[in-house]
């Protein structure tokens, strides 16, 4: 059982603040973390290794600093870690990114065939959920998105059964390996790094691949050149609303505040009053 887990290093968006006056983003000091959704993918791969044995390879495309994300993955128990980094990747959109990652996975496969490629359901910075399906198509893997549970894997018959979150329900799907699985959030909990793995992670000679080592010959397929989408402009959103009208009373007692609020609300917004009365039957 060989799993490749694609990880992305992202800025911790919970720490991003917007400047109240200039309405620009304040990025100073925002820590870089492993995309939280990817941790569910990593844990799913590690759990399969616990069950079926084999190997977990962590793969990350990004700047040299993304090494930290891979060392973290090693400390959780990944066996191998590969950083694909090259200035030629700068400006890659999702199509170019899936091309680069698919090429790197082909290189990994020369060493040991891959049964499952794991990704998170999306990243918290791009939020596109497009790279996983892109890799699957490029490598001709069966695509299983939003997987809530891996029910069963039969390595002899090369079959996998999963529960996939769909609109309004769950699909129980059976397909053949190799497959690409994007993992739904909240389906598992990342294990604690144990001391041995933490030492190993610190000493591990990380594999760092440039464009050629990742098996990419055609530079027109990566970076800005390989990206059909272009960013035409970036701008700050218009503030849409006035500041809130603060509800205050002499007593400041909760009951008075609530009564004052309701009176104001229903006077100014009769359609809200109507909705409340209609719905609360």
């Amino acid at each position, binding site marked *: 059982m060989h799993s490749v887990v694609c990880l992305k290093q992202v800025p911790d968006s*919970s720490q991003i603040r917007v400047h109240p006056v200039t309405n620009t983003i304040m990025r100073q000091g925002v820590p870089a973390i492993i995309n939280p959704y990817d941790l569910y993918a990593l844990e799913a791969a590690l759990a399969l290794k616990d069950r079926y044995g084999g190997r977990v390879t962590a793969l990350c495309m990004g700047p040299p600093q993304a090494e930290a994300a891979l060392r973290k993955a090693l400390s959780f128990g990944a066996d191998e870690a590969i950083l694909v980094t090259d200035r030629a990747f700068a400006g890659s959109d999702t199509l170019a990114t899936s091309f680069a990652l698919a090429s790197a996975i082909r290189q990994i496969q020369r060493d040991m065939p891959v049964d499952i490629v794991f990704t998170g359901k999306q990243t918290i910075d791009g939020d596109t959920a497009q790279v996983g399906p892109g890799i699957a198509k490029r490598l001709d893997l069966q695509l299983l998105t939003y997987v809530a549970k891996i029910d069963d894997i039969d390595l002899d018959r090369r079959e996998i059964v999963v529960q996939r979150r769909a609109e309004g329900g769950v699909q*129980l799907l059976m397909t053949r390996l190799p497959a690409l699985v994007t993992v739904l959030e909240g389906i598992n909990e990342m294990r604690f790094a144990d001391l041995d793995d933490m030492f190993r992670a610190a000493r591990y000679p990380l594999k760092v691949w440039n464009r050629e080592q990742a098996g990419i010959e055609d530079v027109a397929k990566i970076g800005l050149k390989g990206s059909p989408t272009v960013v035409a402009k970036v701008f700050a959103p218009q503030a849409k609303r006035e500041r*809130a009208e603060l509800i205050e009373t002499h007593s*400041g007692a909760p009951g008075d505040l609530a009564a004052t609020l309701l009176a104001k609300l229903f006077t100014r917004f009769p359609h809200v009053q109507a909705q409340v009365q209609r719905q*609360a039957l």
Partner: protein
Amino acid sequence: MSQQTPAPATRPTRRKVELDPRLAAYKGVWVFVEHERGVAHQVSFELLGEGRKLADALGVELAGVVMGAPGEATRRFCAEAFHYGADLCYLVEDPILADYRNEAYTRGLTDLVNAFQPEILLLGATTLGRDLAGSVATTLQTGLTADCTELNIDPENRSLAATRPTFGGSLLCTIQTLNYRPQMATVRPRVMTLPEPDTDRSGRIVEHPLGLVETDIVTKVLEFIPDQNRDQAQLAYADIIVAGGRGLKRPENFQLIWDLARVLGAEVGASRPVTQAGWVSADRQVGQTGKTVRPKLYIAAGISGAVQHRVGMEASDVIIAINEDPAAPIFDFATYGIVGNAMQILPALTEAFRQHLATARKAG
């Protein structure tokens, strides 16, 4: 895995480009009509409304794309697409398409695009739409912009200008696909307004074969287990939402949110820290990485109003914010604010609504 990380300092892209004549042949705006269990997803109708505007701006036709098992139900989706603005529908009927499976739908939609060459293809950013859009865009080797909040035609070059939040919603960026066709985009449910249907409208149906046999498809659907409490759909389309955040301090205090929601017949939402801490299930998360909602009334208790949450709920008609911190960003965009302890205000609010409703019932 990101959409391009846009650097505001980059030099402006040359947007006035001559389109390759091969690509200039791509004409028309398409909306993929998504359905599951015999019901079309409302996001498809929202997109038809938006697609209508784009088609009119370009002076081209708007088409719905309907794929499914042969039968009345599938054809009914075509009729609905006409009601919501489509001029024609491309219809692919095949028993293989009874359940959504990536392989079959990707093949069907890719073939349709290659055969009829639309310039714009829109899909809902649902679990189905994102699964399909990413696969089709990669197969066609074209550009795809996810989770757009605004779609326009650039008058300079007649290309689609797709605007989406970036950096967690704190900035917006406009993305274009210049030298590739079709230009693809997804939009989340509830982001665009639902147009009024016109049941007198009709259109023509263009049928196209799937060209697959069941044995071509590796993946089998063993079972579909419908949700017991259709949580997901209900939150996005709820008219009243009561949401709680970290300011409630302890998981047991979240009960106060449920209490108020029950009195109002409202849905319950939550901020990301609270769903991550497991106080409520992840499908109740409102925000950039959760659901986009636009209820008539949104009550936020103990939610600071970080950008991540704000982008998911600021389209609400009326927002009531309760927070201890007078400097909390939520007061910058809420309609009404109460600065105070949510654990005391919430029960008072529940009681006030209860009394109001009791009086209204007596009078009514």
